[in-house]
Each structure stands twice: as structure tokens, then as C-alpha cells.
């Protein structure tokens, strides 16, 4: 295995495009090293992105959104007060990935590009409307986060393409987001179900919403029906019931070692309800 430390994304993309064997990009490494160690993948070329300038930066964009470098570990997101104030749901999703030790390494982009439907940071990003910038042999392109994963372990990235940045939109006023996941223990598990809700209020009424579910389909899914169920409401009991029904209806899970179809479906509704209530109170400026 060859180990590369390119200094630009263009170089990284060129390396990947010209490689004849198996290539892996290394940011936090918390997935790649596990696969390497278990013999699941034997890359010929490992391209470490951490020497590229700016990959460890969290910066506010001109329009008031956020630009997050691909090598920013989870622990840095949680330590960034302004980012946490804007997008608490995005940050709490990332903070649920692994232990304190994992938080020292694991990154948003790594979690996204691992392609797991259970990735804890992804529903929050999808609900937030985040985008990623992709650098490839033919230049750069920008796509919504939800377009990256296509099936478990697979992404829409072409050979030689590498995610070079992640961008969160401006939070704006009267908005709130939240992410909840269900695991059997309190820590150190892969989500059995995950749900993120992002919404905006006008007074007590929800005017905009995005709901994303994790671990209930081959990819993290955006559920417009669930958002529609609460838009125009004050999150009253009827709206909650409609949200729960929409969330459950959007589930297309499998039964595996971590959960059953029935359990995942039912708990998806429970988490949608609970996450919506937290996002709602955050949008109201309440401490939740």
C-alpha cells in the first residue's frame, strides 16, 4: 500500500484518477482503518487529505452559513460555540459518532462517504440542507448531501472524485434543528434508527421543515411527507400524529443484528415526534 499526502484537492483527485488499483481517501480514518485492519479492504493507494491547506477549518461563509473542512474532527464541532448555536442538531448528530476518542478523529465527510444508512451525522446534514463540494478530474461541482450515498457502502462519487468541503446554509431567524437516534446502550452503538428535524417558525406556526431518517432504508432519506405533516401547524397533537404516521410510512428497513423491521418502523415515529419537539422548542429560543 502506498501512502500519499497531497497538498491540494486537485492533486488528491489526480492521484486517485491515475491509480490503477484500489484507492481510499483518509480523513479521520475511523472507518478506513477498521476495514484495513479486518482485511475487508486492501487499498493499493491511501490518500491522506489532512495535509491539504484549510481542511481543518470551520469558517462562516459570506452569506452567514458555514464552511467545514473535510478533516475537522467531531470534537471541534462540539467546541465551536457559534456553530452549535446555529446548528445544534447537526453538531449533536456528529457528536454521537463513537466515543470521545473517536470524536478526536472522525469527520462529517468521512461519516457521509462511508455510505452507511445508519451514519449519525448525515440525517442532521440532510435536514439542514447542507451541500458538499466535490473536486474531480474535471473540476468541482456542488451537490446536496442526500445525493452522495446511493446504497449501503456506496456513494455517487465517480473515480477520482473527492469531497473537498461541506457547506451549511445560513441558519436565519426562528429556526431550530435536532437529531435523535436510538441505540440499545447509551453510547458506542450504531444507530438502530435516527431522525433529524429542522424547522422554522413564524410565531408558533411551522413555516418550513425538513425531516430526515437514518437506518430505515438503504440510504439516509429525506421525508417530505413528514415535513408536510407539520408545516402550517403549531406541532399540536394532530400534527404529531401525522408526523409519526408519515415517518413510519417512509420506512423501508431490514431486519438485521441491530433491529427488526417492526421495531425500526415504530421507533422512527417515536424519534420523529421527540426530535420535532426539541427542534420546535429550539426555534422558539427555548433551552432544549
Amino acid at each position: 500500500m502506498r501512502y500519499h499526502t497531497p497538498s491540494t484537492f486537485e492533486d488528491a483527485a489526480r492521484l486517485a484518477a491515475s491509480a490503477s488499483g484500489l484507492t481510499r481517501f483518509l480523513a479521520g480514518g475511523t472507518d478506513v482503518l477498521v476495514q484495513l485492519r479486518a482485511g475487508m479492504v486492501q487499498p493499493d493507494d491511501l490518500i491522506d487529505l489532512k495535509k491539504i491547506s484549510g481542511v481543518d477549518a470551520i469558517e462562516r461563509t459570506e452569506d452567514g452559513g458555514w464552511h467545514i473542512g473535510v478533516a475537522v474532527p467531531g470534537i471541534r464541532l462540539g467546541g465551536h460555540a457559534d456553530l452549535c448555536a446555529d446548528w445544534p442538531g447537526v453538531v449533536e448528530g456528529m457528536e454521537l459518532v463513537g466515543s470521545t476518542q473517536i470524536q478526536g478523529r472522525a469527520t462529517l465527510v468521512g461519516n457521509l462517504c462511508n455510505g452507511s444508512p445508519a451514519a449519525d451525522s448525515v440525517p442532521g446534514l440532510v435536514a439542514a440542507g447542507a451541500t458538499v463540494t466535490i473536486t474531480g478530474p474535471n473540476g468541482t461541482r456542488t451537490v446536496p448531501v442526500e445525493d452522495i450515498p446511493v446504497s449501503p457502502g456506496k456513494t455517487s462519487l465517480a473515480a477520482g472524485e473527492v469531497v473537498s468541503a461541506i457547506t451549511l446554509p445560513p441558519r436565519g431567524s426562528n429556526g431550530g434543528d435536532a437529531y435523535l437516534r436510538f441505540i440499545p446502550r447509551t453510547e458506542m452503538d450504531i444507530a438502530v434508527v435516527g431522525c433529524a428535524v429542522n424547522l422554522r417558525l413564524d410565531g408558533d406556526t411551522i413555516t418550513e421543515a425538513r425531516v430526515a431518517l437514518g437506518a430505515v432504508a438503504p440510504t439516509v432519506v429525506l421525508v417530505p411527507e413528514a415535513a408536510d405533516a407539520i408545516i402550517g401547524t403549531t406541532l399540536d397533537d394532530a400534527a404529531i400524529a401525522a408526523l409519526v404516521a408519515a415517518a413510519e410510512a417512509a420506512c423501508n428497513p431490514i431486519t438485521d443484528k441491530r433491529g427488526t423491521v417492526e421495531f425500526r418502523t415504530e421507533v422512527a415515529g417515536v424519534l420523529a415526534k421527540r426530535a420535532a419537539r426539541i427542534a420546535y422548542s429550539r426555534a422558539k429560543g427555548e433551552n432544549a
Partner: protein
Amino acid sequence: MAKDEFNVHNLVGTRPDRPDGLDKVTGRARYGADISAPGMLWAAVVRSPHAHARILSIDTSKAEALEGVKAVVTRADFPTGLTGEDWNLQENTMAGDVALYDGHAVAAVAATSQLLANDAARLIEVEYEVLPHVIDVDDAIKPDAPAIRPGSADASVPEGMAPNVVRYMEFGHGDLEDGFAKADLVCEKSYKTEAAHQGYIEPHACMGQLGEDGKGEMWVCTQGQWFIRRMCSAVLGMETSQLRVTPSEIGGGFGGKTTIFMEPLSLALSRKAGGKPVKLVMSRAEVLRATGPTASASMDVKIGMTRDGTMTAARAEFRMQGGAFPGAPVDMALYCAFAPYKLPAVAHIGYDVLANRPKCAAYRAPGSPMGAFAVESLVDEMCRELGLDPIDVRLKNGVKSGDKSSYGPKFGSIGLTEVLEATKAHPNLAAPLGPNQGRGAAAGYWFNHGGETSVSMAISEDGTAQVSVGTPDIGGSRASIALMTAETLGIPYENVRVNVVETGALGVNEPTHGSRATFASGKAAVVAAEQAIGEMCRRAANEWGIDPEAVEWVDGAAQPAGPNAGKFPPMSIAEIAGKMGSTGGPISGHHEGNLDGVGASFGTHVVDVEVDPETGRTTILRYLVVQDAGRAIHPSYVEGQYQGGAAQGIGWALNEEYVYDDQGRLANPVFLDYRVPVASDLPMIDTVIVEVPNPGHPFGVRGVGETGITPPLPAIANAIQHATGARLRHLPMTPAKVLAALKG
């Protein structure tokens, strides 16, 4: 240190720093994988990806051609003709004609680096013919189940039983029908538990060296260096005494390191690689796939009870699979199941069943937790139905010293009543409970064990003492053995060094199992110290020119007694030791034997839980362990055993299980999915040490390590029913199972 600066009569029961504490907080303690030697090779093992498959061919040529590969072994490199348990051990170490479970070793390779050994292992090509497999015990006991090893049943199995039944047992006493007829309530329920792994954090690791001269050495993490020696030499066909086994520090065992798994492979590879030492370290996935978890169980229990809570009769029928080899602890599960109860009539039936899973090993009170889950759950269900307090019912039926046990013999000194009364008096039982919260209690039992023990003690020239023991220190036993030795000799705790020694230094010792290290090595150390005291009294008597019988040992010194009392000043251990070279030579003591006099230990646990009614997740709010220690030599490590046992039981009850896919492959061979409790899953674990001394030990020790894993399984099930009304009869009680039960 002057004698009056310490209170030599009160060491036992104090909490000094453990002797190996500094090594273990600085990282310098050396565990199984921490040793290296010049010229050392690294090994990797090729394992079956199939649950049951005939091995058609193994092609090692590509691996052998790789530069840096020094040896490859398959079963063809092992001697033939073994029988009985030796054959089982050899077969489990490396598959012969048939791979019997996912993870069963089929080949091993040694190379100049670990990465190279891994590469070489991937180049070994094995051709399999996949055979039908069976995983679940209730499937495995069916007459038409795939027969795993036809003809391997022992003489206890009557003709005509299903092909995978390899042991059968029944025992009991009294008139069962009469007993059930006298009951006001008779309940019969079925229960299941899934296989759990000991989950020690240190993977198995060893470094073995075996030359053409037949002499070998091994450094290994183990609970028993002599067991490793005997088993490895049997599997490899070598002379036992030619193998010297040194135990490393051990990173947890809980029974799982009382036997061999891959250790002979390092020796076989070394022999083939010209005698170079070979290090073999398991990955976590190998530990979970190919070492010895405990059995899984399917159990039917029937109990009769009168309206006032008197138990009139009981019957248990247990089926257990312990992998593709005989040895599921169904016997001990049955012995322990009704042990807390005085029963006029009781019947036990047990089946040991083969399945395509790894060969089970001992796990903390082997069998007892399963039996308790079934029986203590049903007792609780019946108490609820009759409106009786579960602790009172256990007090009413609880066994006392001299009572006939459920498994036959009468009990010696036991402390169940004292334990139950201490439980009742604990403030946790009065703590208020909120919505969705419930409280459960259960009792548990373990025999404890003495066993083959050899200890040597020597007085050094300065009057300090060294004790050589053969029981690896798995949780603080050096401290307790040092306390008992120092107490006996009348010297400071710090003046005793306890060494866990290699096989060449002592006679045979059984492993640290059966909660025996503090009991047996401690008892032998006391006898050895008394021998040395006798010799020191003789040396002093000679110096004084008086009869040795007229010398007594007080506060670490010989002093004249009887008619000579006060005639000479006391002669301290340091004075006697300082002159030993010119008064007769070394002063030492030793003791070897099968150490009987073991004392059984009962415990009760009380747990408060909260169940999320929308997700089925159970949170442990409060936890109490009350257990009879006999005598707590070092109370901190007794508490630690209670807390650790409870935590393992909590994991087994709620989340731990072996999950197999439909191909019979282990689906969760990583700590991410084999869910042992993490720090945030647990509350503080309250402990009460009850002390009803065991008359069979000089300080009253019973052994405390195992009982504590038994009550959590039923106690949590009982608490969940109290919280929700739902009764879970199949472990683990995962959120999905609880949520399904809540819906009825």
C-alpha cells in the same frame, strides 16, 4: 519498622494498596502480547468461514512461497490417535476433516512480521463442501437435526435420543406428584438464554517456542499455566515436563482462559520454523468467533407453592448447547437452579446438546445464571400472583446450614438467611419509584472450589517473606494472599511479596477458577507460613537452649512460653532470618494438596429499572448486591468482584448475545455489536458484604467471584415486569423484545 508501629493482628479485613498496583497504573505490567524475544516470528490463523463444512483440500503453496514466511501448519502436523477430551482439545485447536463452526481454525502461518503473516494467511486456499448446520439449541435437539458428531454421546445417554444429545442427566428427591398436589398454585413456564462471552478486554495471546530437542517454553495470558502445559503437551504429543509455561499478567478471564484455544499453534509453528519463538495474538473477532463463550439454554420450570408462599415441589428440564463439543454446563445449571430453596420434592433433567458453534468454556459460575434466570423468574411471577413479598418468600423457603440441598447432599455452613435479612434492611428497598419504574430481586448461588494447589513460602535473610503461588492474579489475589501470609507471620503487609510463578517452580496447580485463588492459595500459604513459624520457633529454642515446645510465635517474633516465659527477650523474625545460614539453612514452608473445606456463597441482588414505554429501552437506576463472603480479606476487591459480576449479569440480561446469520456465521464479532455495558450504562453499584465465616478456611474465606453474575438476569426481568407488567422470558431483554412484550 518497629513492631509497635503497625497493628499486626488486624491486617485481614483492611484495604492496603495492591502489590502490583504500581505496575498496572504505569503501563509496565506485562500482559500476554507484551513479550517479545530475539528472532521472534508472528503468526496468523486461517479460519473456516462456514458453520459446518467438510475440508476437501488446503493449498498452502502460495503462502509458503512468500518471502519471510517461515512455517505453515495444518492438522496434518499434529499427532493422531488422541481420545476423549484430549481429542476434543486437538480438534478444537485445529479442524481435522470437518470445520465445525464459523471461526474454526484450519491452518496457521508464521512469518517475520504480523502484516506478512496476515498476507500469507490470505494466500492459503481451502476448498470446502458446505454441510447442513444447526445453531439454536431447540433446533439442535430435534431428532432430524444435522448430526454433528455421531457416536460421541457418553454412557449417560439412553438409546434412541436425538443424535446431538451427548450427555443426559436426571436427579432429585421426594414425591413430585404429592408435592404439586399440595400446592395452591402450580406454574410452569419456559425460558431461554443466549450465549454470552466473558468479554475480557485482553485478547488471547502467547509466545511459544519449541525446539527439535522437544523442550519448549511458553509465555501466555492464562488462568492456569499447568492446564496450558498439560493441554498443549497432549495436543502436540510432547512430554509435559519439557514444556515450561510462564503466565503473563492476565487481562481478564472469567473462566474463558482456563483452557486452550490457539496456544498449541504457536508451538507447532515454532517447531516447524526451526525453534524460533512465535507470537500469536488473537484479534477481537477471533476471540468472539473462536474462543469459548458460555452455553445457550432452553429451560422449562414448574413450581408448586401454597398460598402462604411455601414451595411444595419443583421440576426443571434444561437443554443447553455448548458448541460442537460436549461440555455445556447443564449439570451445574441444574445443581444451582433450586439451591436457595428447601424443597420436599424436586426433579431435574438435563441435556447437553451439540451445535455448530465454538466449544464453550467456563464463564463465571458456569450454568448458574441460566438456571437462576428460569427459577428466580418463576418464583417472582408466583409471588406476584399470590401477593407475597419475594424476599419474604425466599426467607420462608431459604436453606440453612444442615438442610438437604435441592441437588442432594446437605449444606455445610451457609449464610443465605443472613444475606436475605441484610437485603431486607437495606435503604434501597425503601427508595421511591416513579412512573415506568420497577424493582426486582433475585437470589443466586455458587459452590466455589478448592482443588489442586501447591504453594511455597520462603523467609528471606532480612525477615521478609516471599510466597510463590500458581494461581494467576486476575483481580487482586496477590493482595489478599499477602494479607493472610503477613497476618499469620505477624509481619507488615509490605514485607510479603507474592509471586505468580511458572510451571517449573511448583507442583501442579489448577487454574484460577471456581473462585478459588484467595481460598486455596491463601489457605495453602497460611499452612506454609505456619510451617516456617514452627521452624523459626525451633531455631529460637536452639539459640536459647530450651524445648521448642516451650516457644510461641507472637507479633512476628519467637518468645519463650510456659515455664520459660520472660526468661529471654523475644527474637524477631529478622533476627532469626539473619542468622539462618548458620542455624540450619533456609527457612521455608510449602503446602500441596487438594484443598477441601470450600464454602458455598449465596447472594441476593435488588435492581430498580425504568423502561421507556415507547422504545422498550431499560435503564438501570439503582443496583444492590448483598453476598456472603465468609470473610472479606481485602474488602475493596470483594466489592469489586460483586460489582463486576453484577455488571456482567446486567450486560447478559439486557444486550449481550451471540447473533448468527442464516448461514450460521457469527454476525456480531466486534465490541460495537457485542454490547458489553459501557460506563454510561450503569449506576453506582451498592454492595453489602455479609460475613458468615467458612469453617473450612483459616480466615473463613468462601470465595466471592462467581455468585454475583447469577442474580442480575432474573432480578432485571422481575424489575421489568414490576415496571411494565410485561414478563420477558427470553434473554437478552433487548428494547425490541421489551417493546414487543409491552404490546402483549
